[in-house]
Protein backbone atom coordinates (compact mmCIF):
# COMPACT_ATOMS: atom_id res chain seq x y z
CA UNK A 1 0.00 0.00 0.00
CA UNK A 2 2.76 2.42 1.04
CA UNK A 3 4.66 1.54 -2.13
CA UNK A 4 1.52 2.22 -4.19
CA UNK A 5 1.05 5.62 -2.55
CA UNK A 6 4.70 6.47 -3.17
CA UNK A 7 4.33 5.56 -6.84
CA UNK A 8 1.17 7.58 -7.08
CA UNK A 9 2.57 10.68 -5.40
CA UNK A 10 4.51 12.07 -8.40
CA UNK A 11 1.46 11.61 -10.62
CA UNK A 12 -0.78 13.44 -8.13
CA UNK A 13 1.80 16.24 -7.82
CA UNK A 14 2.02 16.48 -11.62
CA UNK A 15 -1.76 16.75 -11.91
CA UNK A 16 -1.91 19.42 -9.17
CA UNK A 17 0.88 21.41 -10.86
CA UNK A 18 -0.81 21.07 -14.25
CA UNK A 19 -4.10 22.36 -12.85
CA UNK A 20 -2.31 25.23 -11.09
CA UNK A 21 -0.58 26.24 -14.29
CA UNK A 22 -3.83 26.00 -16.21
CA UNK A 23 -5.37 28.30 -13.60
CA UNK A 24 -2.54 30.80 -14.03
CA UNK A 25 -2.85 30.71 -17.80
CA UNK A 26 -6.53 31.51 -17.55
CA UNK A 27 -5.98 34.59 -15.39
CA UNK A 28 -6.36 37.94 -17.07
CA UNK A 29 -3.04 39.76 -17.44
CA UNK A 30 -2.73 43.00 -15.51
CA UNK A 31 -1.25 46.14 -17.14
CA UNK A 32 1.89 45.45 -15.10
CA UNK A 33 2.08 41.88 -16.47
CA UNK A 34 1.81 43.29 -20.01
CA UNK A 35 4.45 45.92 -19.32
CA UNK A 36 6.79 43.27 -17.91
CA UNK A 37 6.23 41.20 -21.06
CA UNK A 38 7.07 44.27 -23.19
CA UNK A 39 10.30 44.74 -21.21
CA UNK A 40 11.15 41.06 -21.67
CA UNK A 41 10.67 41.53 -25.44
CA UNK A 42 12.93 44.58 -25.56
CA UNK A 43 15.60 42.84 -23.47
CA UNK A 44 15.50 39.80 -25.73
CA UNK A 45 15.72 42.06 -28.79
CA UNK A 46 18.74 43.87 -27.36
CA UNK A 47 20.47 40.56 -26.68
CA UNK A 48 19.93 39.44 -30.27
CA UNK A 49 20.90 42.77 -31.86
CA UNK A 50 23.92 43.79 -29.75
CA UNK A 51 26.70 41.31 -30.53
CA UNK A 52 29.24 42.71 -28.08
CA UNK A 53 28.54 40.81 -24.81
CA UNK A 54 29.83 43.60 -22.58
CA UNK A 55 27.54 46.24 -24.09
CA UNK A 56 24.66 43.78 -24.20
CA UNK A 57 25.08 43.11 -20.46
CA UNK A 58 25.26 46.85 -19.68
CA UNK A 59 22.11 47.48 -21.71
CA UNK A 60 20.35 44.65 -19.90
CA UNK A 61 21.25 46.18 -16.52
CA UNK A 62 19.91 49.56 -17.63
CA UNK A 63 16.69 48.04 -18.91
CA UNK A 64 16.27 46.28 -15.58
CA UNK A 65 16.69 49.65 -13.83
CA UNK A 66 14.14 51.17 -16.20
CA UNK A 67 11.62 48.45 -15.39
CA UNK A 68 12.22 48.86 -11.66
CA UNK A 69 11.79 52.64 -11.93
CA UNK A 70 8.47 52.15 -13.65
CA UNK A 71 7.24 49.57 -11.14
CA UNK A 72 8.16 51.73 -8.12
CA UNK A 73 6.63 54.81 -9.71
CA UNK A 74 3.42 53.00 -10.64
CA UNK A 75 3.09 51.68 -7.06
CA UNK A 76 3.65 55.12 -5.53
CA UNK A 77 1.20 56.85 -7.88
CA UNK A 78 -1.40 54.17 -7.17
CA UNK A 79 -1.17 54.86 -3.42
CA UNK A 80 -1.86 58.58 -3.99
CA UNK A 81 -4.70 57.86 -6.42
CA UNK A 82 -6.36 55.61 -3.85
CA UNK A 83 -5.97 58.33 -1.21
CA UNK A 84 -7.49 60.82 -3.65
CA UNK A 85 -10.49 58.58 -4.20
CA UNK A 86 -10.96 58.37 -0.42
CA UNK A 87 -10.84 62.17 -0.18
CA UNK A 88 -13.28 62.44 -3.06
CA UNK A 89 -15.77 60.33 -1.13
CA UNK A 90 -15.48 62.66 1.86
CA UNK A 91 -18.13 65.40 1.61
CA UNK A 92 -16.03 67.71 3.80
CA UNK A 93 -12.68 67.22 2.03
CA UNK A 94 -11.23 70.62 1.18
CA UNK A 95 -9.93 71.58 -2.23
CA UNK A 96 -6.51 72.38 -0.72
CA UNK A 97 -6.11 68.85 0.68
CA UNK A 98 -7.17 67.29 -2.64
CA UNK A 99 -4.83 69.59 -4.59
CA UNK A 100 -1.95 68.59 -2.30
CA UNK A 101 -2.61 64.90 -3.03
CA UNK A 102 -2.70 65.63 -6.76
CA UNK A 103 0.62 67.46 -6.45
CA UNK A 104 2.11 64.31 -4.90
CA UNK A 105 1.02 62.37 -8.00
CA UNK A 106 2.60 65.02 -10.23
CA UNK A 107 5.82 64.98 -8.17
CA UNK A 108 5.95 61.21 -8.59
CA UNK A 109 5.52 61.64 -12.34
CA UNK A 110 8.28 64.26 -12.43
CA UNK A 111 10.76 62.04 -10.55
CA UNK A 112 9.79 59.17 -12.85
CA UNK A 113 10.45 61.30 -15.93
CA UNK A 114 13.86 62.41 -14.68
CA UNK A 115 14.90 58.85 -13.83
CA UNK A 116 13.62 57.47 -17.13
CA UNK A 117 15.37 60.16 -19.19
CA UNK A 118 18.63 59.66 -17.26
CA UNK A 119 18.58 55.92 -17.97
CA UNK A 120 17.58 56.55 -21.59
CA UNK A 121 20.63 58.82 -21.98
CA UNK A 122 22.92 56.05 -20.76
CA UNK A 123 21.25 53.58 -23.12
CA UNK A 124 21.66 55.75 -26.21
CA UNK A 125 25.46 55.95 -25.86
CA UNK A 126 25.65 52.16 -25.62
CA UNK A 127 24.07 51.46 -29.02
CA UNK A 128 25.25 52.19 -32.53
CA UNK A 129 22.75 53.97 -34.80
CA UNK A 130 22.18 50.69 -36.67
CA UNK A 131 21.49 48.73 -33.48
CA UNK A 132 19.16 51.46 -32.21
CA UNK A 133 17.24 51.33 -35.47
CA UNK A 134 16.80 47.56 -35.24
CA UNK A 135 15.67 47.69 -31.63
CA UNK A 136 13.22 50.48 -32.43
CA UNK A 137 11.55 48.53 -35.18
CA UNK A 138 11.04 45.36 -33.19
CA UNK A 139 7.77 43.97 -31.88
CA UNK A 140 5.45 46.90 -32.55
CA UNK A 141 2.42 44.68 -32.00
CA UNK A 142 3.49 43.74 -28.50
CA UNK A 143 4.18 47.34 -27.74
CA UNK A 144 0.82 48.57 -28.94
CA UNK A 145 -0.75 46.02 -26.61
CA UNK A 146 1.25 47.47 -23.75
CA UNK A 147 0.17 51.04 -24.62
CA UNK A 148 -3.47 49.98 -24.64
CA UNK A 149 -3.06 48.11 -21.37
CA UNK A 150 -1.75 51.22 -19.67
CA UNK A 151 -4.57 53.33 -21.09
CA UNK A 152 -2.33 56.35 -21.57
CA UNK A 153 -3.94 57.41 -24.83
Amino acid at each position, binding site marked *: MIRFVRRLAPIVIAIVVAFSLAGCAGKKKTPLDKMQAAFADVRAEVQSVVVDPERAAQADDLLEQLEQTFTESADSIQVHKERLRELNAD*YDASRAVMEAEMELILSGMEVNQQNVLAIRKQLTVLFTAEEWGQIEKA*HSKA*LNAAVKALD*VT
Partner: protein
Amino acid sequence: MLATLITILILSGGASGGPLYDFGDMKKLVKTYVEDDQRKDAALDVIKEFKARAKAENKQLKSMVKQLDVALDDLVAADEDLLALGEGVLGNTRTYYQDLLDLRFQLKDQFTREEWNAAYARDSEQLE
Protein backbone atom coordinates in the same frame (compact mmCIF):
# COMPACT_ATOMS: atom_id res chain seq x y z
CA MET B 1 10.00 49.97 -29.55
CA LEU B 2 12.31 51.28 -26.87
CA ALA B 3 11.33 54.88 -27.59
CA THR B 4 7.65 54.03 -27.26
CA LEU B 5 8.29 52.12 -24.07
CA ILE B 6 10.07 55.17 -22.65
CA THR B 7 7.16 57.33 -23.81
CA ILE B 8 4.81 55.13 -21.81
CA LEU B 9 7.02 55.42 -18.75
CA ILE B 10 7.14 59.21 -19.04
CA LEU B 11 3.38 59.43 -19.39
CA SER B 12 2.52 56.84 -16.77
CA GLY B 13 0.46 58.19 -13.94
CA GLY B 14 -1.19 60.68 -16.24
CA ALA B 15 -4.77 61.02 -17.26
CA SER B 16 -5.78 57.39 -17.55
CA GLY B 17 -9.48 57.83 -16.91
CA GLY B 18 -8.77 60.56 -14.40
CA PRO B 19 -7.84 60.02 -10.79
CA LEU B 20 -11.31 60.64 -9.39
CA TYR B 21 -14.13 58.85 -11.12
CA ASP B 22 -15.46 56.00 -13.16
CA PHE B 23 -18.02 58.02 -15.08
CA GLY B 24 -20.47 55.19 -15.68
CA ASP B 25 -20.73 54.58 -11.95
CA MET B 26 -21.15 58.28 -11.20
CA LYS B 27 -24.10 58.59 -13.56
CA LYS B 28 -25.78 55.67 -11.85
CA LEU B 29 -25.14 57.15 -8.41
CA VAL B 30 -26.57 60.53 -9.41
CA LYS B 31 -29.71 58.91 -10.79
CA THR B 32 -30.13 56.80 -7.68
CA TYR B 33 -29.30 59.23 -4.90
CA VAL B 34 -30.00 62.83 -5.98
CA GLU B 35 -33.65 63.26 -5.09
CA ASP B 36 -34.44 66.69 -6.53
CA ASP B 37 -34.94 66.63 -10.33
CA GLN B 38 -33.40 70.03 -10.95
CA ARG B 39 -30.24 69.11 -9.02
CA LYS B 40 -30.20 65.68 -10.68
CA ASP B 41 -30.19 67.27 -14.16
CA ALA B 42 -27.50 69.74 -13.13
CA ALA B 43 -25.36 66.88 -11.76
CA LEU B 44 -25.78 64.87 -14.98
CA ASP B 45 -24.65 67.95 -16.93
CA VAL B 46 -21.50 68.12 -14.81
CA ILE B 47 -20.80 64.44 -15.56
CA LYS B 48 -21.16 65.23 -19.28
CA GLU B 49 -18.55 67.95 -18.81
CA PHE B 50 -16.29 65.47 -17.02
CA LYS B 51 -16.54 63.08 -19.96
CA ALA B 52 -15.90 65.81 -22.52
CA ARG B 53 -12.86 67.01 -20.57
CA ALA B 54 -11.48 63.43 -20.31
CA LYS B 55 -12.01 62.94 -24.06
CA ALA B 56 -10.14 66.17 -24.84
CA GLU B 57 -7.35 65.09 -22.50
CA ASN B 58 -7.02 61.73 -24.24
CA LYS B 59 -6.76 63.52 -27.59
CA GLN B 60 -4.09 65.82 -26.21
CA LEU B 61 -2.19 62.86 -24.78
CA LYS B 62 -2.26 61.05 -28.13
CA SER B 63 -0.60 64.06 -29.72
CA MET B 64 2.01 64.14 -26.93
CA VAL B 65 2.70 60.41 -27.39
CA LYS B 66 3.47 61.10 -31.06
CA GLN B 67 5.77 64.03 -30.27
CA LEU B 68 7.60 62.10 -27.57
CA ASP B 69 7.94 59.05 -29.78
CA VAL B 70 9.58 61.08 -32.54
CA ALA B 71 11.92 62.85 -30.13
CA LEU B 72 12.90 59.71 -28.24
CA ASP B 73 13.47 57.83 -31.47
CA ASP B 74 16.24 60.31 -32.28
CA LEU B 75 19.50 58.91 -30.92
CA VAL B 76 21.05 62.39 -30.67
CA ALA B 77 18.01 64.29 -29.37
CA ALA B 78 19.05 67.15 -27.06
CA ASP B 79 18.36 66.63 -23.36
CA GLU B 80 16.72 70.06 -23.16
CA ASP B 81 14.21 69.13 -25.86
CA LEU B 82 13.27 65.90 -24.09
CA LEU B 83 12.98 67.67 -20.73
CA ALA B 84 10.80 70.36 -22.31
CA LEU B 85 8.46 67.70 -23.68
CA GLY B 86 8.36 66.02 -20.26
CA GLU B 87 7.54 69.34 -18.61
CA GLY B 88 4.82 69.87 -21.20
CA VAL B 89 3.24 66.56 -20.18
CA LEU B 90 3.36 67.53 -16.50
CA GLY B 91 1.91 70.99 -17.14
CA ASN B 92 -0.87 69.51 -19.21
CA THR B 93 -1.68 66.95 -16.52
CA ARG B 94 -1.65 69.64 -13.79
CA THR B 95 -4.20 71.71 -15.77
CA TYR B 96 -6.32 68.60 -16.28
CA TYR B 97 -6.29 67.81 -12.57
CA GLN B 98 -7.32 71.38 -11.71
CA ASP B 99 -10.22 71.12 -14.16
CA LEU B 100 -11.26 67.81 -12.62
CA LEU B 101 -11.27 69.41 -9.18
CA ASP B 102 -13.40 72.31 -10.43
CA LEU B 103 -15.91 69.82 -11.79
CA ARG B 104 -15.77 67.65 -8.68
CA PHE B 105 -16.81 70.60 -6.51
CA GLN B 106 -19.53 71.57 -9.00
CA LEU B 107 -20.82 68.01 -8.78
CA LYS B 108 -20.69 67.96 -4.99
CA ASP B 109 -22.75 71.17 -4.91
CA GLN B 110 -25.64 69.27 -6.48
CA PHE B 111 -25.72 66.72 -3.64
CA THR B 112 -26.86 67.15 -0.06
CA ARG B 113 -24.48 65.75 2.54
CA GLU B 114 -26.83 62.80 3.13
CA GLU B 115 -27.12 62.00 -0.58
CA TRP B 116 -23.33 62.21 -1.05
CA ASN B 117 -22.61 59.98 1.95
CA ALA B 118 -25.25 57.47 0.87
CA ALA B 119 -23.87 57.37 -2.68
CA TYR B 120 -20.28 56.82 -1.57
CA ALA B 121 -21.19 54.30 1.14
CA ARG B 122 -22.90 52.27 -1.60
CA ASP B 123 -20.00 52.88 -3.99
CA SER B 124 -17.47 51.57 -1.41
CA GLU B 125 -19.57 48.46 -0.81
CA GLN B 126 -19.64 47.78 -4.55
CA LEU B 127 -15.90 48.14 -4.78
CA GLU B 128 -15.20 45.69 -1.92
